[in-house]
């Protein structure tokens, strides 16, 4: 009986705990905040990025002295508005700068990286 209970608890952990901590392999960036999207939504390979670069690079949170205190778990949209009033980076600028600058740097160094041209990220369904 005791053995069965132990097995049930073990099964529960095996079944539910890893998915709870696992990361989505791909995230579709189809934020409603943008309204109707002009270009196809970007399918962001989150897992591929999380294995290559530091999480804090994207999930950042800068203090007044530009120190990155880290904002793990936060999404871009939590801080970057679509139309910010205070002159800060808009959500679209945040996406474009974050993705393109990194990709451009990697490609310039001759390393493989994601897209730098519009249609390499905003891919139309065939």
């Amino acid at each position, binding site marked *: 009986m005791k053995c069965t209970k132990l097995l049930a608890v073990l099964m529960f952990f095996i079944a539910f705990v890893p998915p709870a901590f696992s990361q989505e392999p791909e995230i579709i960036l189809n934020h409603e905040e943008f309204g109707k999207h*002009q270009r196809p939504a970007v399918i962001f390979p989150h897992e591929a990025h999380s294995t290559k670069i530091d999480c804090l690079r994207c999930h950042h949170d800068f203090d007044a002295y530009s120190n990155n205190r880290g904002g793990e778990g936060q999404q871009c949209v939590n801080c970057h508005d679509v139309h910010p009033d205070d002159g800060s980076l808009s959500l679209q600028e945040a996406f474009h700068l974050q993705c393109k600058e990194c990709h451009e740097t990697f*490609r310039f160094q001759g390393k493989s990286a994601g897209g*730098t*041209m*519009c249609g*390499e990220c905003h*891919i139309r369904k065939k």
Partner: protein
Amino acid sequence: MDKLYEFLVGPALWAAFTLFVLGLVVRLAYFCGALSKERSGFLHSCADLKWVFGSIIGKLVAIKNVMSGSQPLWGIILFLFHACLLGVPLFLLAHNMLWEEAYSMSLPSLPDSVCDLLTVVFIAANAVLLAARIVRTELRRISTTWDYSLHFLTGVPFVAGFLAYHQIGPYRLILILHIIFAEILLIIIPFSKPGHAIHTIVTGKLKQLQSSY
């Protein structure tokens, strides 16, 4: 291809813009020289900058005047050709995004669907004008190889842009061709049709003056 792309949207674009602006300045200098009092008192008396710019804007905006001409359909096609040639690149969202990212300033943008439609209109207008140049005897007689080349040179950036937007064919290659031909077009613009436009404006004004005497 990455290096080529970086070069095309960096130094090559700057070079193209510089040549474009310098070319326009040189062209304008020649134009002003031709209008100088010493060389042509009559031209100088009838052309003023206010009128010139008024005429350009009037020709672009006033479709009503174009339609009231002797060949309204021809006028509409010419108007659409020129309006799309200027309007689509200037007010395209993707272009303005790049301006915004690079220099934190840009022009207002048209929706992509509108620009897509205007691109098709431009390509169609270009094709009709080219066909007319070949078919109509009076046009064929005054057409040179350079005139035919201009149809090709204005058409390629739009066709490549259309294909790139719809992601038809090899995307990277098409986008690079789009940029190369657009930069070539920027460089040759001051040395081709604006001269013809200035000529039209001045002669148009002369005709207007002659008819008033």
